[in-house]
């Protein structure tokens, strides 16, 4: 009788610790616009900003999103990751929030609400077509724009090169 109850309790306890982090960690995606982008890009300090543009419907974006999450989880005080989501704002509840939960993303995600993309695309890079994935890395020391998919090693090396600049 006792061992049975113990097992049941342990199961409930295990279930509790499995569900708790996933349930409570799901962040709320905030709206983002041209002004928000302008102010983000104005942060020129020792901190290296890694800004990734992505969408849930973009499969190469989804493939590499884990690298950015990994960077964020490294908890480096001089590194900030921002994931700029380009799903339509009316898809945030249906698609983006469930994606964040499913991938357990803790890196901050914002959703671009300025739908006239030509207003903000040139702020990121003059020559960017708006194709995603795209990643902008910058600090006071410089700017690196990657308008394509990026391999994990290449991403980490590019960031490391900022630290040694």
């Amino acid at each position, binding site marked *: 009788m006792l061992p049975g109850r113990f097992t049941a309790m342990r199961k409930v306890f295990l279930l509790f610790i499995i569900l708790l982090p996933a349930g409570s960690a799901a962040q709320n995606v905030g709206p983002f616009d041209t002004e928000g982008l302008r102010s983000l890009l104005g942060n020129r300090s020792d901190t290296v900003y890694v800004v990734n543009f992505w969408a849930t419907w973009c499969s190469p974006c989804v493939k590499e999103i884990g690298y950015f999450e990994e960077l964020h989880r490294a908890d480096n005080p001089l590194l900030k990751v921002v994931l700029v989501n380009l799903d*339509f*704002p*009316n898809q945030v509840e249906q698609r983006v929030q469930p994606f964040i939960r499913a991938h357990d993303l803790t890196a901050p995600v914002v959703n671009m609400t300025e*739908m*006239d*993309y*030509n207003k903000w*695309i040139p702020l990121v890079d003059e020559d960017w077509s*708006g194709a995603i994935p795209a990643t902008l890395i910058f600090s006071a020391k410089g700017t690196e724009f990657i308008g394509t998919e990026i391999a994990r090693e290449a991403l980490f090396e590019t960031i490391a090169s900022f630290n040694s600049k």
Partner: protein
Amino acid sequence: MKKLLLLSVFLIGLSVTVSAQLAPGDAAVPFTLKNVDGKMVSLSDYQDQKGMILVFTCNPCPFSKAYEQRIIQLHKKFAASGYPVVAINPNDDIASPDDTFEKMQARSKEMNFPFPYLKDVTQDIYKAYGATRTPHVFLLDNKNGTFRVAYIGAIDNNAMDERSVSEKYVEQAIRALEKGNQPDPAQVKAIGCTIKARR
């Protein structure tokens, strides 16, 4: 003079390699592609039209979906006055399994497309035009039997919400042509998904 010549040869070479995209004013590239009804459709079939709204688009891209109704409306609005829509799906079947010919047929039927929806099987046509996005519009102007590119780019300036559109680029371009003017802007960056090339 010789230096200048060399420089211009260099610059021409550069512009060809950097951007293969057609520019406003360029002659349109002829095409003959299979429509969802099984028949072949050619640019030359449209000789008696004033122009053509050529749209590279596809089935699954959220931007293409968001614009489907607006592309239908463009056709309904302008086909009668000589600017019909012709849609071309440029995506590779393997890279984008939702863009097979059968799925194009299904989508065309479901949405009741009043215009041809052609498959760029070899992917030569989208490359010749330099299309990169879905949707990506090339508005063609028929000048004495020669189709020329009059406008390239986005349909309007709000993909998600038609009611928030403040610039109807394609409509404005057609109205300019109708008045005998060149569209201004003649080019606006197209916003959408990347075209899926064969790997």
